């Protein structure tokens, strides 16, 4: 059997197409890497995999059949972690899933399963944090706008939450690390890509872009944040544990502008 490195376009469908190819051609896969990233292996041959919807769908269906609902979600979420080498870990789990008669996605004594579970938990935590810490600012064209910079690619999995919550207002959440955003236009959500002006900032309310009253609501919120604190119980260690410093940039209550 020849050793191969598979290169794919970085999408989940692309990854599933790799799995299909690996099984169909009985490949000995030593690495699966997204395009643009260099492979580590010196002595194996590289194959470019073109994403094919139908193949991806077949793997997806088969996986769904052999895993619990949560187990399947964990696989998807772990993929969104973009952790280096996550593809091979997932491949390992998928092979284990397909090779077993019983449902094994809850076999926490299997190292790869446990690894995927932990990574998925981290992604889930980041998802939850984005749902919590995103702060919308109302723009002059009446869009509630937020900039995020999440550790993992969570935009696809926070979509549902924001759509069901903010059904009657236009909103846009933009991931500046991955350079794409999610826009809701009162009917549908769509992925958008754009150049953002430098001085728009992650917090504050530059009047060139934001509605006149916006800064006042940030100030009111900060006032609330300060007033609801019980000074005789201050516990900064616990505070920082709950709101790690790298998230402070999103929060208007921590913003120097408000």
């Amino acid at each position: 059997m020849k050793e191969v490195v598979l290169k794919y376009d970085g999408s989940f469908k692309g990854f599933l197409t790799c799995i299909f190819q690996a099984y169909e051609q009985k490949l000995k896969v030593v690495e699966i890497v997204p395009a643009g990233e260099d492979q580590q292996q010196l002595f194996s041959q590289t194959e470019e995999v073109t994403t094919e919807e139908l193949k991806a769908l077949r793997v997806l269906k088969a996986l769904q059949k052999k895993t619990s609902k949560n187990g399947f979600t964990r696989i998807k979420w772990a993929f969104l972690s973009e952790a280096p080498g996550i593809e091979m870990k997932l491949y390992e789990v998928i092979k284990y899933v397909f090779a077993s008669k019983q449902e094994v996605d809850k076999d926490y004594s299997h190292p790869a399963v446990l690894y995927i579970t932990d990574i998925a938990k981290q992604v889930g935590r980041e998802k939850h944090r984005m749902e919590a810490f995103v702060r919308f600012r109302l723009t002059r064209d009446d869009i509630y706008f937020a900039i995020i910079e999440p550790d993992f690619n969570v935009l696809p999995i926070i979509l549902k939450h924001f759509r069901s919550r903010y059904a009657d207002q236009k909103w846009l959440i933009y991931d500046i690390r991955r350079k794409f955003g999610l826009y809701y236009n009162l009917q549908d959500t769509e992925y958008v890509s754009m150049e953002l002006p430098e001085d728009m900032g992650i917090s504050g309310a530059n009047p060139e872009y934001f509605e006149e009253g916006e800064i006042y609501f940030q100030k009111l919120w900060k006032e609330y944040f300060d007033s609801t604190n019980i000074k005789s119980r201050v516990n900064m260690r616990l505070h920082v544990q709950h709101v790690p410093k790298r998230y402070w940039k999103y929060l208007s209550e921590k913003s120097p502008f408000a």
Partner: protein
Amino acid sequence: MDFDRIKEKLSILADAAKYDVSCSSSGSKRKNTNKGLGDSSGMGICHSFTQDGRCISLLKILLTNHCIFDCAYCVTRKSNDIKRAAFKVQEVVDLTISFYRRNYIEGLFLSSGIFKSPDHTMERLIRVAKKLREEENFNGYIHLKSIPGASDELMREAGLYADRLSVNIEIPTKSGLKLLAPDKNHEDFMKPMEKVKNEIIQYKQESKLIKSTPKYAPAGQSTQMIVGATGESDRDIMYSSAFFYKKYNMKRVYYSGYVPVSNDPRLPSLGSAVPMLRENRLYQTDWLMRFYGFDIRELLNNDFQFLDMDIDPKLSWALRNRHLFPVDINRAEKQMILRIPGIGLKSANKIIQARKFRKLTWGHLSRIGIASNRAKYFITCASREMELKDISSEDLKQIILKNSTSKFRKDLSPQLSLF
């Protein structure tokens, strides 16, 4: 909107509301079906945390801090010389909506000092909730305070707009209440609880027959007790708590370490420490009672009236019941696994799932994430057994304390700190 005026009111009325520790926004089933604003069908979200480490999930304010009562433990008591303010109904509605749209909050927690009469106050609270639901199409979370002494009719109406209702009992015993709030009546607290409980049951039954029955307080009711204001034992507090869970189907009972707010001789003086460690141990006990299958009488009883401060209540119980251990992790039933110190709900579930595939060893267990510094003395697994049978409970406790670090260590140390 006059921002400066609103800001001042917000500062006064948020400050007065902060001693109510509940900020939970979970447990409701209100979906956004009308293309309106908000959805509270998922789990609760903490949008921020105060510097004292508590979750900020709701806009928690009083409608007013004018009050006709003079309860010694309360910062808004009539005789206290503080700034007073009152929100207009529309101001609370606007503030809630503007904050919600910016994703600052999950909803509103509205309480109030009692002005004029209980009914008059309750009626105002309901007006805010009704406006939010009917005029603003708001499906976010609303927690309303049930005002002791409000009429049954108003309590029924409140539940139609609110997700959660609560009355704070504040003082765990009747005698304590008599001492600190002589113009309040124990029965006045129980009556709204009873009413809400009965309405919830009735609406639930009706909704089984008629699908379009409106929701009534879908997130149930909760209450709060102040800890350390009067001389109650942990047993008194937790027995009251167990009573509320059972009798009124409470979703939550909160414990709030007393923060001194007055120089009243009946109370701990200003500047005395807030009993935060004790509060923490009470919450742990509460969890053991609600999720780990413990009967409160196992944890606290006549012979054991106060919780250990230096170790958690589960470990404390296990040390008093050594004859039930060690537990074989590969065979024991889930309810017994839940009783092992250092194993929580999540680890217990993982153990139950994982052991279907192979016998678990120490390696598996530590990777699953149990706190083995405590757990290892109480279990056997597929690895070699620990030889600890002859160690007395007191010695075992010392071994465990020596090999673990507690964030509360400094509060426990008998030595005086010099700085």
